[in-house]
């Protein structure tokens, strides 16, 4: 019915902000609830991928600062590999290619996972983001005065102890702002997951547009939710920054 009206007056887009309270044809609730569920998947995917990215990225970033040529080369290759392929292509490789290359039983098991899109998105986004985290961690460690590592060794700390207790705690404070940007990027990149069927926020807005034809309401709502998410993350990081601020140090 709505559709017919629009055809009669093509330039008149029929705004209907009440659409969010209408039942969605997926039968799981209203359109509004559909979008909120999408926001939930966006957040969960981003958080899981972030944990993966931090773990791998820290390891690779530390490797780039170690006095070992092989660790350096290996870490540099990792960074270049994941930085120079578009995220969408990486997701396709994880989704369509990797299961084929694994032993047959594994590949089948992966393809039959009920949440294959989610797992693929977490792994794909996590690995891609790890390269960027690694570069930040490396820069953070290299920004510290060389004397700090020397003082740690002079006290008899082993190299792992020096990283654990002296270098990394300082480096992470230095790179907190750029890491925040990377996390915000990661949140935005979860939307690429819709290409492999991840039902995150943009995907939900898109399906709402397809079912209800209220395209601009759907996208406006998604836009506002992304902006809100940004604000929440930025203020959370501000609070964290205050908590970990070192007394007596200006700036960092």
């Amino acid at each position, binding site marked *: 019915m709505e559709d017919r009206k629009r055809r009669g007056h093509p330039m008149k887009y029929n705004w209907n902000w009440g659409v969010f309270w209408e039942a969605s044809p997926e039968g799981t609730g209203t359109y509004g609830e559909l979008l909120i569920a999408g926001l939930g998947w966006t957040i969960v995917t981003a958080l899981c991928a972030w944990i993966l990215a931090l773990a791998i990225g820290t390891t690779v970033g530390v490797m780039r600062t170690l006095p070992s040529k092989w660790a350096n080369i290996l870490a540099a290759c990792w960074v270049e590999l994941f930085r120079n392929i578009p995220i969408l292509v990486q997701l396709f490789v994880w989704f369509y290619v990797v299961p084929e290359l694994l032993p047959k039983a594994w590949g089948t098991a992966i393809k039959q996972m009920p949440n294959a899109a989610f797992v693929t998105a977490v792994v794909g986004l996590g690995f891609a983001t790890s390269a960027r985290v690694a570069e930040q961690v490396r820069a953070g460690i290299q920004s510290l005065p060389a004397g700090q590592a*020397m003082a740690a060794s*002079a006290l*008899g*700390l082993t190299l792992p102890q020096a990283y654990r*207790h002296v270098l990394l705690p300082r480096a992470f404070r230095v790179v907190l702002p750029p890491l925040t940007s990377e996390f915000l990027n990661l949140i935005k990149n979860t939307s690429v997951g819709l290409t492999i069927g991840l039902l995150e926020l943009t995907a939900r807005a898109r399906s709402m547009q397809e079912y209800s034809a209220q395209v601009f309401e759907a996208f406006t709502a998604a836009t506002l939710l992304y902006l809100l998410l940004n604000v929440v993350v930025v203020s959370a990081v501000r609070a964290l920054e205050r908590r970990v601020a070192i007394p007596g*140090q200006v700036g960092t």
Partner: protein
Amino acid sequence: MPMIEIKDVSKAYGAFQVLRHCTTSVDKGEVVVVCGPSGSGKSTLIKTVNGLEPFQTGNIIVDGVSLADKATDLPKLRARVGMVFQNFELFPHLSIVDNLCLAQQKVLGRDRPAAEAKAHALLARVGLPEQADKFPGQLSGGQQQRVAIARALAMDPIAMLFDEPTSALDPEMVSEVLDVMVALAKEGMTMMVVTHEMGFARKVADRVIFMDKGEIVEDAKKADFFGNTRNPRAQAFLSKILQH
């Protein structure tokens, strides 16, 4: 047997020779001052003693442990030799007491109460009993350097290395640090000190080493060094420094 024995040590960065055939030794309880113009290799020499700077030829033996031996456990050796740096190098993200406790707990395996007791005792000894819970950024340079000395002493070192401990300090803070070092020397600590503070050398040094262009040019008892230096380069250096 000397506590620190440096035998014919040479080191080069590419074509640049930083150390040339350096040989000397420090006995137990002895205080040796190393001086020389900047770029003479004195900082590099003192850092080779605890393996912070590798060297290519020769050997260094600290309390019977050979540094040229690849099997030597360097962290273990360093834990027994205290070092104080020009720029203090306290860990700014740790409180003063945590700066003193970190290596005691992680390297020596002391428990927290024992480490803290030791930390508080040493802070009192360097005249900073009230500062335990502050952070390095909240202290003056002289106070930071005294904390750094306390941090090194917390490991119960067999010897202490000082790499220009007062040259990053404002002039009015130099004496508070030197006083701590003089007291340490009088208690019989084995010390190797890179410094231009000739007053300190006159007061407590047993021997003075003069370096230039990576070489040990003069290695003499204090009285001989200040009384009748034979080497013209050392003479020129001394006259320049003592003018002020």
